[in-house]
Every structure is written in structure tokens, then in C-alpha cells.
């Protein structure tokens, strides 16, 4: 189901969606947003890309295997928890940096944790969608 209209539109839509998802992730602590919804939006961007251009092309664009994304995301969440344990004596006790960065605010373990959630969500959705689509091709 290749469609020229979809393929062309996607070329402009996907970067916008990804930027928006990162914006939601970074701003999530202060405004509506966060890692979960950000991840969903990024994942749907890649999914639509896969529908328009095929799974293989989508896999190349994502570069990382969804399974690796899942593992990396879980590891990030775990590390953010362990940092609290090591630095402050409690698992997941949040740690905040001093310097303020434009657009991001202060670096912190909750941000790392949320990035972990973001990564896991992308990985989970893409793993399911890509697997289903590959199944579809073989059938």
C-alpha cells in the first residue's frame, strides 16, 4: 500500500512529530507532557513512516533494534534509581543538578527516568508494530 501522497507528507510530518515528542519529554516536568506521551508520539511517527515506506526502511531509519531500545530504557530508569541510592541513600530519591540549560532546565534523575520511559515506550510500540508488519509480509 505505497502511496505517493503519504510518502511525501511523511517526509515533513515525521521530523515535526519527533521534535514535538522531544519537546513534550523535556518540558514534561513543568507543562503538560512527559516521557510516556512523548514516546507514544515518536512511536506513532515511526509507525506511520513504516506504513508509508515499508518496515525495512523504517528499521533503517530508527537504526536501533526496538529490543535494544526497551533494554536501554529500562537500564536508564534503573540507573536513575541507583543514582539516588548511591548519592542520597534511597532508591529513586531524585537528584538535581545546579546549572540551568535553556529549554531543558536543570538536569536531574527524574529527567533521566522519564527519558527511560520515553525510550521503553518507543521500543515496545515499535517492537509490536514492526513484528506485526513483518508477519504480514511473510504471510
Amino acid at each position, binding site marked *: 500500500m505505497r502511496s505517493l501522497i503519504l510518502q511525501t507528507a511523511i517526509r515533513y510530518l515525521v521530523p515535526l512529530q519527533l521534535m514535538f515528542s522531544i519537546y513534550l519529554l523535556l518540558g514534561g*516536568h513543568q507543562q*503538560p*507532557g*512527559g516521557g510516556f506521551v512523548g514516546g507514544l508520539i515518536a512511536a*506513532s511517527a515511526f509507525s506511520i513512516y513504516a506504513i508509508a515506506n515499508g518496515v525495512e526502511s523504517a528499521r533503517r531509519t530508527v537504526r536501533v533494534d526496538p*529490543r535494544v531500545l526497551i533494554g536501554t530504557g529500562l537500564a536508564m530508569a534503573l540507573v536513575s534509581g541507583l543514582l539516588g541510592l548511591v548519592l542520597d541513600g534511597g532508591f529513586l530519591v531524585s537528584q538535581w543538578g545546579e546549572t540551568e540549560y535553556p529549554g531543558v532546565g536543570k538536569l536531574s534523575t527524574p529527567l533521566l527516568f*522519564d527519558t527511560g520511559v520515553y525510550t*521503553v515506550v518507543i521500543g515496545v510500540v515499535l*517492537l509490536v508494530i514492526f513484528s*506485526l508488519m513483518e508477519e504480514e509480509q511473510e504471510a
Partner: protein
Amino acid sequence: MSLAVISGFAAAPAVPLLYRLAREKTGWIVALLPLSLFIYFASLLGRIADGEIVTAAIDWVPSLDVNLTFRTDGLGLVFALIITGIGTLVFLYGGAYLHGHPYTGRFYTVITLFMASMLGVVLADSIILLFIFWELTSFTSYVLIGFYSEKAAAREAARQALIVTSAGGLFMLAGLVLLSLSAGTWEISEMVGRSGAIQADSRYTAALVLILLGAFTKSAQFPFHFWLPGAMEAPAPVSAYLHSATMVNAGIYLMARLYPALGGTDEWHVLVTAAGAATMLLGGWLAWQKTDLKQILAYSTVSALGIMTFLLGLGTEETITAALMFLLVHALYKGALFMVAGSVDHGTGTREIGDLGGLRRAMPMTAAAAALAALSMAGLPPLLGFTAKELIYEGTLHLHDTDGWIALMTAVALVGNLFNVTAAGLAAIRPFWGKLKSPHAPHEVSVTMWAAPLILGALGLAIGVALTAYEPVLERMVEAVHGEEVHLHLALWHGFTTMLALSGVTILGGLALYVGAPRLRGAVAPLGRASAAIAPSRLYSEAIHGTVDAATAGSRVILTAYLRQYIRVIMITLVAALGYVFATQIEFDNLLHSSGVRIYELIIAGVIIAAALTVTQLNKRLSAAATLGVVGYGVTLIYILYGAPDLAMTQFAIETLTVILFVVVIYRLPKLKQLSSTSARRMDAVLAVVVGVTMTVLTLVVLTVPMESRLSPYFARMSYLAAHGHNVVNVILVDFRGFDTMGEITVLSVAAIGVFALLRLNLNKPKPGEERLPEPMEEEERGR
């Protein structure tokens, strides 16, 4: 000391990475961990021998008084030394034994985890902690028994061992909880002083029986012994480590450790002594009838565990001394012999004793290791086994009881030891002496493979000679169990005593059976066949099959495999439960109190209702899905109107993804057909209306409950102060309730992997290029 336990758990995940880099040298690097732990524990020897006790504690759940408390006394230290010392040798031996096997990395990961768990069992002072480590050893043992996972027998043996030991573990947990209730503490070191209160408590018998079930299953006591011979499907290093030297001794450890709290009563004597004696005799009786090296060793291990249990059951200072001495002796010689069996298998390609003989010329170093271990097992001076046997007879002869009882107990011990002599001869002497027999030309194994058992055998000799050096350590061990101060006088030579005479009888009797074994084996075979019907292993498999059959029958009734059926059941249950609560507890007076409805709310609600109704009338999947999307987006709008932008955004993204998912699978779905009869559809419509009404009432009821939540204002207030965030929803998710979120993303990941596996599994058609298990190793060809 906590670090000693934790280091293994921390190191294990890194092992597969290490294996990618170091390949065949992995064993040498990983073995540094048990080696350094061994050195650490050895450095404690002096302090512990002087009567000191080393403790460490980390707060865990202080509110429940459950903490990570570790404690090393004589008993724990000797166990820790056995675990780390034999561990070091097994790690080295394993590398050579598995040489080139693709799962070597996995082997080292799991065996490192096992070592850490086992250390946890023997060093934990909190019984909760002990239980957790206990179950971890069962679990790692399961993985290691099933190491050759391409073999059906290995998988079955692993499952059987896991079911038996973890079922026992659950009984034990119940017993431990009862015990801690009657003792009023979770710490074993504090229970010891409260044996009076514990044993007077009405829950004592129940606690004792339950805890013993745990110990008996773990230490393969009759009638739970059958999993241990099955576990011989594991690679030889695993049998040497888990199933002779360490894990199977966990039950012995637990009985010894809790003896001061639970032991000494009539119930204890009867239960423990009887189980021990039965296990010892049965194991020994079966051992000499086997012809596979590892099976002989396995049944003799069962027998040896029986001896220790028997001695702990008798429970005098002398029998406890004998049990604890025998523990070390047995770990040393049996660990060595299992490695020897693995080496013989490697060098000749078989473990059948009938096909083996005269290997000592081709495998001189392995033969030397086997001989040293066998002599200790048979209890010949000056090896440590001799001293242990003398102590056993001393223990039974000095029981404070009637002469008849003493004679009976001594006779039981004598028969048990006699079988041990025979097994030693069959497993470690026969293959190496006499005429050369081997399926193909035997060759000596690599240095690590003969050095490891040789070191263990030599230790049996060294400690046997240098008894006085070991004496203070053994004294501290016995004190930990018996409670009172102990002074031992270990010596090789006691003069011409009854014990010595009994030793002589044991060895002669054992030799006689050894010589007669090949002929007698045929003679007793009918007995074995006759008793097969009531063998515990048979009862086990019938129980398992019965459970599976019952579950299958039950599933057929409950699981109809129709989604609509499940939804009906769920909805009817929901309505019934809520309806009951409404009918009995809720007053409907001011339910319809309203703060006014805005026009656009009505419009959205109308759209949602219209869309939902339309879905039921459509007969095309695509349009049905799109119309359902309208329902979802309508709900999203309502979220926005009520100031929940995060919720709305998530709902919106989920709706979008659902459509994408649907587009992906639409071509595979069958055409939408009308399958239900008209009457069934009418019933469903009624049900749908009832559910809708119920949920509406529920919502209204929730609104009438006064909102006296302290949480909302708290989170709103603390969000910025404590977590530097204005978005309360996000702050709760990633900070206040971060642990929940972590659990959720883990569940999500597991679910995704499940979907992936289901899609890839595709049982009907194997696809080319699919990852396949490596070809079965030579194990398969050996035959039985």
C-alpha cells in the same frame, strides 16, 4: 561481609560480556571471585576459631523489622569456605569441561548467581533473607540441571527438582513464619535463646513439620530423594558443586542452624532420625545396584545426606560433632568424585562401570584423585573420612538410652557406612584398576580437570593428618548447633576400641558387597521391579499428570476461547458486584444533584453515543474501527474540557496508535460476519445497557462521596517544593511514584517481548534463517 554476598549478584550480569571478550579464558577470570571470597573467609578463620562472631547489617524494611542481617559463626564460616573453595575449583574445572560449548557464558552467569545465593543462605541471620536466598538456590539449580536444554530428560529433571524443592520451600516459609511468631523475632541469633518459648508454643509441632519439609526436600531425604539422581542430567561440574558439596547440604545446614531453637524434643528425634535412617539405608541400598558412575555417586550422596540427618536427629553433642565433621569430609570427597566421573566421561566417552577398567595407566592423575577421594569415602586412615566414621560410631555408642536402642542405632549407622565403602569401590576404584576396558582409547584430561579433584582429595588427606588444626573450628561449629561450650579431642589413633573394631567390620563388609555386587545386582532386580509401583518418583509423576489432566478438564469448561464469552462473564460479574453494593449500602437521595450542564458537553456526549450506536450497526471492519475512534476522540475532548491535558494527550496518542495497529493487521482479519443469533444479540444489548447504567450510577455515587483527600493538596503543594516540577501528573509519575512507574514499564516490556515471541514462534512452519538451538553436544551420543 554483606559485600561478600552481594558481589556475586553484582558480578553475574557482567559475565556474558566477559565471555565475549575472554572466550575460553573466562573460567580463569570468573574464578577470581570465589577465590578472593575464599581468601577473605579464610582470613576470618583465626577470629572465628577464637569464638568471635562477625556480623553485618543493612536496613531493608525497618518498619516491619525485616533487615539484611548477616552473621558468620563457626557453622556459617565452614559452609562459606566450602562454597567458595570448591566453587573456585568448580569454576576452573567447568571451563575445561565445557570447552567450546556455546552456552559457557550462561553457565558462568548462573553458577555465579548460585554461589552468591548459597553464601546468602549460610550467612543470613534474618530468616526472611535466608528464605529468599534458599529459593534462589532452587531456581539457579533448575537452570543448571536443565543446562543441556535440548535434551528432554534434562528439562524434565530440572522441572522435577524445581517443583520438589520449591514446594518444600513454600512449606518451609509457612513454618518459618510460625516460628518467628512464637519466637517474636526474625533473627535466628535471637531465636536461639528463646527455645523454651518456641517449644512450649502450641504452634511448635506445625512449625517443626513445615520447616523439616523444606529441609528434607532440599537435602533429598526420603521420600523426596528422587529428584537428586534425576538432577544428574546436569554437567559434571554442576553435580560436583550443587548436588553434592553445597546446595543439597542447605537442608542439613537449616536443621543444624535451627537445632538450638527447634531441636531436642521428642518430635524432633522421631521425625529427623527416622527420615535420616530411611534415607541413608535406601540411598546406600540403591547406590551399589547402579552401573552409571554418576548414578552411583548420586545415590551415595542421598545416603550421605541421610547419615547427617540421622546424626542431627539423635542430637547429642557427639552425634552433632560427627554430623558436622562428616559434612566437610563428604563435600571434599564427593565433589572430587563427581569431577572424576566427568573426567572419565571426557577421557573415555562412557560412564558405564561395566565398560570401564584399568584406566590408571592412561589417566594417572585422575586415578590418583579418585583413589584419594575413595579412600576418604571408605573411611580408611589416615584420611579425614576415617575420623568422621570413628566419630559416628562414638556418637551412636554413647547415646543416653537403652542398650537395645544403642545397638540398633549403631547397626543402622554400620549398614549405612558399609554401603558407602561399596559405592566408593564401584565408583572410584573399579574404573581405574584391573584389565584395561574402554569404548575407545582413553586419554588423560587437561591439567585443570585433574588438578581440581586432586586438590580436594589431597585436602581430605591433609586435614585428616593435621586434625588438631581443624579442631577449634569444629568446636565452634558444634557450639553453634549444640549451644554449650565444647572441647574436642580429635585424634587418628584412639587405641583398640569398639569404634575401631566397627570400622574394620564396615570395611570388610563393604568390600564383600563390592566383590559380590555384579552378581547380586541381578538377584535383587526383581525386588526393584516389584517396588516400582510405590516408588516416590512414580507417585510424583502421577501427581503431576493428575494435576495437568485436572487443569485441562477445568480449562475446557472455563476457557471457551471466545472473547465475547469472556467479556460477558466479566461484565455480568461487575454488574452483580456493584449492584449488590448499591442495593445494600447506597442512599439514592441526592444522587442527581447537578451543577449544570454546558451545551458543548451535551454535544460531545451526543456524538459519543451516536458513534457507539453506529459501531453496532456497521458490517465493515474499517468503518467500525474509524467510528470507534470517534468515541475515543470524544472522550479526549471531555478530558480537555475538565482540565486534564496530560490525560487527553495520552488518550489521543493511544487512539492514533490503535488506528495504526488496525491498519497494519486489517488484511489478515476475516470478513466481519454476523455470527450471533438475533436473540443472543438482544441479550447482549440488554447487558450493554445494564452495564452502562451501572457505570453511570457508579460515577454519580463517586461524586456524592465527600472529597476529603489529603493526597491531592499534598501533591499539589509538594510538587514544586520537593520535586521542582509544576506538572503534578508528571511529577507523580516520575518522582513521587517512580517505583510504580518502573514496575509498569517493566510489565510493558515483558508484554512486548511476549507479543514478539508469539509472532515469531509460529509453531506450524519453521522459517529459514531462524535462530536455532545449537546441535546437541556429544552428551546425546553417549547413550545410557
